[in-house]
């Protein structure tokens, strides 16, 4: 039997203002699976990802990440668990004045001993490593640039490079390419998928562009009003389901807002490792 990476059992999360962002979600994601989460804005995708990243504690329900309940373990164990989880934010929370190289190296701070983290402040300890990850995002030339000199899309790619450098066992990405142009988005999502399948780790990505999700991921979870609307492989996600999922929005969002040619998914599929 394949080991389970994420297990949610009737998990709900109620915000302080009473809003129910995640409502009674149960699901299991196996180790090495690659899952895309889609749904209209405000559906609870980000909250769900933050629950998985152990940033938010569910109000009720059982949660197990990489075999552990993050809220029932010691602080040391929680820190060790968090070392194995990496999250890419839509707007990467990187101090604007930090240099790209530092921001990328910060990904592995959890694995480093204290002295190494301190030494890296004086002189970046692994410039080559940071550069390699940035090259995969095609921004190796920005290595020593300050982050506030980058565009939104470049920042997002720095965020992805940081998580690639972290090498976590669970990759969580929250709309990682919302500001990246379509052709590049495809490559970034491709790199994330390649990383996950090469190292055999789990990838959970929330995506705004439905075509990207259907194209790259073998499992699609549709979320609406904090609940799972469907949980299917892309070939079985139908036009009607998507229309239904995005009923609150005028169109089904795709890259560059091109009208989505709704064929059963997988048509545009390319080999994973080019």
């Amino acid at each position: 039997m394949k080991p389970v990476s994420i297990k949610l059992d009737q998990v709900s999360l109620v915000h302080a203002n009473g809003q129910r962002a995640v409502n009674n979600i149960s699901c299991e994601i196996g180790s090495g699976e690659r899952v895309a989460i889609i749904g209209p804005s405000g559906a609870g995708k980000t909250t769900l990802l933050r629950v998985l990243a152990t940033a938010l504690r569910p109000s009720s329900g059982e949660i197990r990440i990489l075999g552990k309940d993050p809220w029932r373990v010691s602080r040391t164990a929680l820190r060790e668990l968090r070392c194995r989880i990496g999250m890419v934010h839509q707007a990467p929370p990187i101090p604007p004045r930090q240099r790209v190289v530092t921001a990328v190296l910060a990904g592995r701070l959890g694995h480093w001993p204290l002295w190494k983290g301190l030494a890296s402040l004086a002189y970046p300890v692994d410039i080559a490593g940071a550069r390699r990850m940035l090259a995969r995002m095609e921004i190796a030339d920005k290595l020593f640039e300050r982050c506030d000199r980058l565009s939104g899309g470049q920042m997002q790619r720095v965020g992805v490079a940081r998580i690639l450098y972290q090498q976590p066992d669970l990759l969580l990405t929250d709309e990682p390419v919302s500001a990246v142009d379509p052709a590049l988005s495809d490559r970034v999502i491709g790199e994330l998928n390649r990383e996950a399948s090469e190292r055999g780790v789990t990838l959970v990505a929330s995506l705004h562009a439905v075509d990207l999700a259907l194209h790259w991921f073998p499992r699609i979870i549709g979320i609406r009003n904090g609940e799972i609307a469907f949980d299917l492989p892309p070939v079985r996600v139908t036009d009607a389901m998507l229309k239904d999922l995005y009923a609150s929005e005028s169109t089904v969002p795709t890259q560059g807002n091109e009208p989505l040619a709704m064929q059963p998914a997988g048509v545009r599929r390319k080999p994973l490792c080019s």
Partner: protein
Amino acid sequence: MRSEEAAVQVRDPAAVPRLMLSIAIIILLWPGFRLTEFDLGVLFDPRNREIMGKFIATFFPPEASADFLRLILKATLETLAIATAGMTLALLIAFPLALVVTRSLSISRIGPARGFAAGRFLRLPARFILMFFRSIPEIVWALLFVRAVGLGPAAGVLAIAVTYGGMLGKVYSEILESGDTRPTLALLEAGSGRLAAFCYGMWPVALPELVSYTVYRWECAVRASVIMGFVGAGGLGQLMELSMRMLNGGEVSAILLTFFLLVMLADAISAMLRKATA
């Protein structure tokens, strides 16, 4: 991995500038430690520690005998009186000088008239006097006046008068110039004198700001008059200097508490005054 990237060895371009900056800071600060005779050991020198220890141990409880409280009350009133009297004299110095240096009140500005050259020649020394008065810190003035008129509050009053006269004069003229000058100009062009132009054209516009700044300065003057006591210019500071010299911690802490209360009181009074005139 793409091979060409792994081959490139990159060095941090910021390393050298950073290193240089660090070295420069160390080179600049190092003689500073020598010049300031920096030696934390002095603080732990047994004899010093004993004296200081005894002194600080007596800080609590603050001295509260009726005699001493009467002394404190007297000194506090003296401090307030020094500040108030000093500010009054400062106003007397500042106002005429501010009127002289304020350019928008200049009659000669609107056209070549009688006194064009005289006006310019008067403004320059007035400006210089203001600058000279305010550039020397009040405590230095106090030191000088203590030698000129003797120990006691008179030196403090004069020191505040001179320093704050210089500050007020400069700021007054700035406030007057930054306000709406059109009414003044209209009056001047209609042939009115400087003083009349000031009273009817400028005064109403600038008054709230002038008052607010003066009140703020009075607050500073209260604090300054405490400090100036240390060089013998009367008030709470002089009392504290005396208590310190006698190593009487209880008195020092009582005076410090009074000082805090006084500063808070001055703060409250000035806030009230500003609100009432705003």
